[in-house]
């Protein structure tokens, strides 16, 4: 299931504070966090493409043209975030797309691997929406 620009679940679409029209691909399996990320990103004025697991994310990656940023959770069903980094980086026109990892603290050791594999930044869960927004802004400049 692909959520483009949110969906009917987001009844009260947050008003974007400002519009940048940047597109962010989000791969997050937890429904509520996905909702929050989507809420936050839309509010920041980004377009969002949501994937609920690794397999879906890969399908989206195959389908769409490169977005402006990819936000990946590490622990995803079917394919984890690390595999998705490799997949993204294996696509020539996706090479320059910034990738930000979302990771639980217990997988700290994966951060190195993620950065080595091509991630640009990481944010530890539980994340602070403001901090996350700041990091994304930096990469989308």
């Amino acid at each position, binding site marked *: 299931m692909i959520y483009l620009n949110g969906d009917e679940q987001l009844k009260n679409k947050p008003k974007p504070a400002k519009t940048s029209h940047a597109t962010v691909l989000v791969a997050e399996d937890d429904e509520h*966090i996905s909702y*929050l990320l989507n809420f*936050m990103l839309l509010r920041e004025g980004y377009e969002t493409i949501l994937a609920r697991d690794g397999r879906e994310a890969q399908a989206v990656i195959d389908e769409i043209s490169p977005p402006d940023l990819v936000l990946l959770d590490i622990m995803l069903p079917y394919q984890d975030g690390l595999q998705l980094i490799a997949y993204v980086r294996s696509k020539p026109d996706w090479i320059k797309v910034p990738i930000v990892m979302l990771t639980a*603290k*217990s997988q700290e*050791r994966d951060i190195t691997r993620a950065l080595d594999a091509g991630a640009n930044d990481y944010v530890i*869960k*539980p*994340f602070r929406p403001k901090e996350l927004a700041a990091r994304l802004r930096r990469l989308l400049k």
Partner: protein
Amino acid sequence: MSRSIGFSWRRQLTVCLPLCVTLALTLVIFLHANSLEPREISHGQLDEQRSLEGWSVLVGGVLFTGLLGAFLLVMNARANRAEREVEQRTADLSRALDDLREQKRQRAEAQQLAHIGTWEWRVGMDTVDWSDELYRIFGLAPGEIEMTYESYLSRIHPSDRCRVRNIFREAFVKGHSFQSEERIVRPNGAVRLIESRCRAILDENGKPSGLMGICQDVTERKQAEQVSKEGESRFRTMLKAVPDMIFRLDANGVVIDYKPEREDDPPLQPETTLGKLFAETLPTHISRQLANAIHSARESGQVETFDYQLPVSSGKTLDYEARVVTIEETGTLCIARNITQEKHAVERFRRLVELAPDGIMIVNASGIVQMANPAMLSLLSADTENQILDQNMLTFVPDEEAGNWTELLSRIVQGRLPSIQVESRFISLSRQDFPAEINARHCEWDGHPGVQFIIRDVTERKQAEEQLKSSHRYVRSIIDCSSDMIIAVDNNRLITEFNKAAQRTFGYSPEEVLGKHVDMLYAEPETGAVMHKAFIEQSGGIQEVLNKHKNGEVFTSFLSASPLRDAEGRLVGMMGVSRDITARKQVEQLKNEFISTVSHELRTPLTAILASLELILDGAAGEVSEQTSKLIGVAYENSERLVRLVSDILDIEKIESGNMVFDFKPMRIVPVLEETIESMHAYAESHDVGLNLRAGSSDPTIYVDRDRLIQVVTNLLSNAIRFSPAGDGVEVSVRIENRKVCVAVTDHGSGIPEEFRTRVFQKFAQADSSDRRQKGGTGLGLAISKSIVERLGGEIGFETRTNKGTTFWFDLPEWR
């Protein structure tokens, strides 16, 4: 006798006949003168003239006849006397002749008996007078041939002939007697040795007129002498070989023969011994003993023996055994044998027997004890030998064994069984029986067959064996009860021990593995040898290994091994205690998964909660009333605290399980501190506490995991902020001391209560449980900080003063 009578008649006749003739002549002349009538004249009737003449003739004739008759009578008497003398002499002579004949016969017999022959030779006579025996000596029949001087010489052995001729010549010329030995050759060619003496015969003028000699056949005697000489020489040679000292004494006790025991360095020098009285030569105590022995030997006619000690120059004494025997009526032969070695040997043996720790006992063929050494006495709890001697040994063995012993004794005595070694029981005089190791052996005792026993009390050994056995059983049961596998191998890595746990875990029975190579137990056999070597080199070790079950399944075990050494420290193998950690591994896996899950599952909702609350507080969902905002704020803070708690619990778990990864890098400490302080600013502000860094000019480099260091400083700062009174400040300082970088975080709070100081770094420790909500700590921060600082190679501590404040510090080695 008749001869002597005839002789007498003739003598009478010679007297009467001249008298008659003279008377007749006188008558004739008378008659002639008186007319020539012999008859008238003879009757005295003559003329005057004529008658005067006739008468004168007649008277003259008668006178003459009377004178002649008287003369004849005298002469006859004398002749008769002479005849008697002659007769006497003749008888004597005849007797002498008879004697001579007898002597001659006897002499011939004697010559024959003595094999002595005689000869005589006279100048001018060609023949030599030989005695019969001389003929025999020369291998001839007596008188067989006539011997001449030359033929005598011709029978002398050619080699000796010239010498003999010269001897004869010299004897003759000088008139001396000579003695010589020469060989003669008998007609049959046999050579004999004769001893001859010859002497010149001298005439009345003292001139040599011949030679006489005697010869004796000495062939046999000389041979016998030779044999005797050889015998003596052999005897002497034999004596030389005898290792004994030999004296021969004459009746007076003079040493007339002495043979030292050794040619070199004899204790008594022959020159100072021979010809001396033994009493002068030998030391007093010996000569006295010898004198007694000689006396006894003469009395008894037996060999007498005595022992003596002879001091020698080296200061030692030698032991001798002397045997004395009378020889040749009055002489004495004394043979002394050096028995020093034997004495020593006997002495040593005696001492050995006495000191032997084992009981030694000799019994005769009937089992009667003849001898027992002190150890035997003590074994049988006897105080004196007499308690045991003459007892039957069967009294010292259990009754049920007596039959066996009787049988054994008889077999040993008869030589059917040379020796036996058995373990049995013996019974002491105090009726206490003890286990004994018994060695019985055939022996001779006083010339009778007997049995020698060597008996060892093996009570202690038995006890030790029993103890060993029980300790063995004990160890065995420990090994068998052990839930860990216990596997031992020898130096060839062949399995020598495989306990029950091992049998259960591997699925093998002991028979299937004992003596087999241990590599069969490894999933990767090639690693086994390497590991074994490493364990030897490092005197043991701990390692995770992959083992292979009998059914091929691979499992992980945790092996702790150490080399096995014997009493001398020689390596004899390897002992391994191993535990199947597959289950632990699985648990670990489960735990990891659980933690991961907890981490994920707790954080995910918290993430959602926190993010939502923050967004609400930010007014992302529209205006929030002040009251709502406050409530949302409480929810937010507690959610955050919950997140910290989860994080701290995870940290503690990681540190304790060793799973926390440290990424060491050299770095300067001040920027790290600055960054941490910066990140804590918001928190400090919320408590109205100021943060100050006092680094001075020093900015040392340390080698740490940056994130962990930040974690520690954050913890300390967070504590300091929380316990600082509002409006106060927290100081962070850095200084270098002894190549250590010391970081201190000081607050000016109430200080740590006395009773809490010892528990500061314990988990979930909080000074006051009522503080907890107020202060918002998890109670894990300092415990985590301590663990981290220690892992970073440093120390952590604090100084506190009530109502003055607290300083937490840690130091880390300076990186150079």
